[in-house]
């Protein structure tokens, strides 16, 4: 019963926030200096595209009516018309490929980062105060302070520019359309190695720091001493008593830092010219394609919202004490 009401409340919040995000996204592009006419309708584009955008967003109608129309469009996955990136075509048609590319990169990278980060954090915390701890934490702290694009740039310079082991840009090689499935996978992996490594190491640093701090706190608790007094092995203490409690903050922070992760993804995609959502954001900004930018921002915000919601649910399963 308790769990059900918790779920119900979280879902209600999810729905309310979802509407708030859509409304925010709607007004952000309309209340900024210049108004919708200047922001959503780019100056350089042709009359045909301008008219199409005005028509699509009903820019000449009053705001409440525009908002209702926008809501309808969002729920039918109709994000409007691209002004410059895909001149005049529907944004929805162009989105699947970059989204797929980004999911591939972020998915692989995040999974690796959580696994490696938690391992490194656990390794350092268990050897607290020893040289291994110092080295591990210095490593994590350095990469945590380093802007992702800088690390990516160095990787690009060394492994793609100097040694030429990996390609300089792209999500896949030339002639991708004509390849068979095996070559396609090969080409993707070959192009993904550097971006994934850069992304993983940057994100991993944060998880390692949190894991290490959380675990060192837990290891000083009384029940760890009790477990030791019972004669449990180190492995059992770590696995059954310490890690279970220490994982909780990691889950919370993992949810909060999704926004951070997206930033890292944008930087990595930008440096490696990897054709995903981040690269698309850059294109949209450079070409002043604001309808496209609006669509991308909405997608990112909703992804983060859903990720937070999922983290809440996972947290509840991990920590049955949660009531509020």
């Amino acid at each position, binding site marked *: 019963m308790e769990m059900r009401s918790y779920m119900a409340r979280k879902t209600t919040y999810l729905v309310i926030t979802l509407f708030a995000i859509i409304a925010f996204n709607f007004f952000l592009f309309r209340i*900024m200096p210049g108004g919708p006419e200047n922001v959503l309708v780019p100056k350089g584009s042709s009359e045909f595209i301008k008219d199409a955008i005005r028509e699509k967003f009903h820019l000449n109608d009053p705001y409440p009516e525009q908002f209702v129309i926008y809501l309808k469009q969002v729920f039918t996955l109709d994000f409007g018309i691209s002004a410059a990136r895909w001149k005049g075509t529907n944004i929805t048609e162009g989105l699947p490929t970059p989204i797929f590319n980004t999911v591939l990169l972020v998915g692989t990278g995040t999974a690796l980062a959580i696994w490696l980060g938690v391992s490194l954090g656990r390794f350092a915390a268990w050897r607290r105060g020893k040289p291994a701890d110092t080295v591990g934490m210095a490593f994590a702290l350095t990469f945590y302070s380093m802007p992702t694009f800088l690390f990516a*740039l160095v990787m690009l310079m060394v492994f793609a520019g100097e040694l030429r082991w990996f390609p300089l840009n792209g999500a896949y090689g030339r002639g991708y359309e004509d390849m068979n499935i095996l070559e396609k996978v090969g080409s993707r992996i070959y192009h993904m190695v550097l971006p994934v490594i850069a992304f993983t190491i940057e994100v991993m640093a944060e998880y390692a720091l949190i894991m290490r701090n959380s675990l060192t706190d837990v290891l000083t608790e009384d029940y760890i001493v009790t477990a030791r007094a019972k004669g449990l092995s180190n492995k059992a203490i770590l696995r059954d008593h310490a890690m279970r409690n220490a994982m909780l903050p990691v889950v919370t922070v993992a949810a909060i830092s999704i926004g951070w992760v997206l930033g890292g993804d944008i930087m990595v995609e930008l440096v490696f010219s990897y054709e995903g959502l981040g690269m698309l954001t850059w294109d949209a900004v450079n070409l002043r394609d604001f309808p496209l930018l609006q669509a991308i921002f909405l997608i990112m915000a909703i992804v983060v919202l859903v990720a937070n919601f999922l983290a809440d649910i996972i947290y509840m399963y991990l920590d049955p004490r949660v009531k509020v």
Partner: protein
Amino acid sequence: MAVCNTEMQKSQSCEHTSRSSRKALGIVLFAIAILAVSPLIGAMIAAPTLVGGDLRAHSFSAATVANAGSNQTVWIGNQTQLNGTLTTSDYSWLNLYFNWTLEDNGTRNLSGRVVPYTFSTTGIHNVTLTVTDPTNTSSTGEVFITVVPRPVTGSNRTLHEGSDVLTITLNASLSEPLGLIVSYEWNISTKGGTLLANLNGSVVQYSFNKPGNYTVTLTVKDSNGMVASKTMFVRVLAKPLFIVAHWIFTFIELPILLIVAYSIIGRLRKGSGLITNTDIEKARLQYKTFKKDWKVFKANRLGFSGLIVLLIFVMMAVLAPWLSTVPNPDQHEEPNVPDPIDPKNLPYLQKNPLVPSLKKSIYTNWTHPLGTDHKGQDIYSLTLYGSRASLIVGLIATAISVILGALIGLGAGYFGKITDEVLMRVTDFFLVLPWFPLMIVMMAILGQRFMWVVVVIGITSWPSTARIVRSQVLTVKERQFIVRAQAIGASDSHIIRTHILPNVLPLIFANTVLLIAIAIFSESFLDFFGLGDPNVISWGTMLESAYEQQAFKAGAWWWIGAPGVAIVGMVLAFSLVGYAVDDVLNPKLRRR
């Protein structure tokens, strides 16, 4: 059973083939494979005779005509490509002789099918191509190459009303051919096409009187009567509003001055003198706690070294004009000074006339200790000046976010109930918004100004502060002295000002220091994304230009390394100090 071809393989009888027949099958397949590959190998061996044929046998018929290419117009001094072909293309070029004849300071003969040539005189040149085959049959073709003088206007300019003089000097005396230009004509018009002035002379002056976009067209005529023109653009920017031009003064220094003046006047009106005994006592107590905290802080080795690194950065920012090796790092050197070029960088050189170089400049020995970038700007001096932008963004953006966060946190924590609920839902909403994309969107709409960078970073990073302030206010609110103040009828604003704020602010200090690190981080990210102010020297912008100019391909590590190390150093220093302060001030609170 011995042979089992593909037809039989499918049939029933072949499904139970014995081991020996399988072996036989393998041999047959191998033989088929060899048979299939052998024509290829044969072709490769026989290739020269098959493909090349007899090179000397051909001669061309009367129907074949030499084609000297299409007519071109080039600026003097530019290389043209003379490209000869034949109307029928099945001839091997090897046994044909291509001969070009042209008049350029005397008759010149050039041979070869594709010949680069640079004309030294202007005029319409008639170039004749003669193609001769081994049997002495020949065919001729003609092409006209128009060589026009090259007008030199100088590069596009941007003038700032208020800080620059709006008179520009236009100098065309470097136009080629040198000394042979007989007339120079300058047309200055607005972007709309209205002619403003028509000037003659190789060096002229013109004064703009209002902001806008202008085009300047130079038309030159040389002694051979050839005419050429070139257009350059001049932008005159309007004088910015006082608030925008001096925004740091308007939004930061002025409010501080006003607050100080207000408190001094208030004290004077009370008539108790500027400094009372209570103030001295308070200061003494604060000094005592500070000394205690300082002792704990000093014991934290990481935090202390972070502080030293920070002090070095502050020194860099303050003393930049004295430490830098060039007077103004934004002003690059004359582009015709050849810097020593590493042959490895040659492909890169084709894109940029000035290669980023680590070698010493030919001017002085120690001008470029960390090399130069693609424009010849000194990396070391740029890095020094870049620390200013980072520190300003870090401090002011954090101030904005702390003020916003503190106001919302205080309101939510102190008033509670429905205020708390509403404010916290708003905070949660902004906490959920992905703030990197949000910053990008806001900067893209607002435009690339340094002020907006600061404001955008400030107003996207307040939610975490608001949460911390609220939790601190909630604990302080329950303490005895608040209840007593409320009992004697103190107003809410008095309680917040004199009791809650002084107790909460020190606790969020650590968070503030960490926020500075994140603000610097965000600023470099925005710059790298191409949304920073192009007129401000910053580390992010340096890295962006390094990336844009493909420094990673040229191996220009110093160009990426110097600003990179600086960013990491500063962010790391702020983070270390933040963690250390956190340890000192609130040892029980969990970090982040």
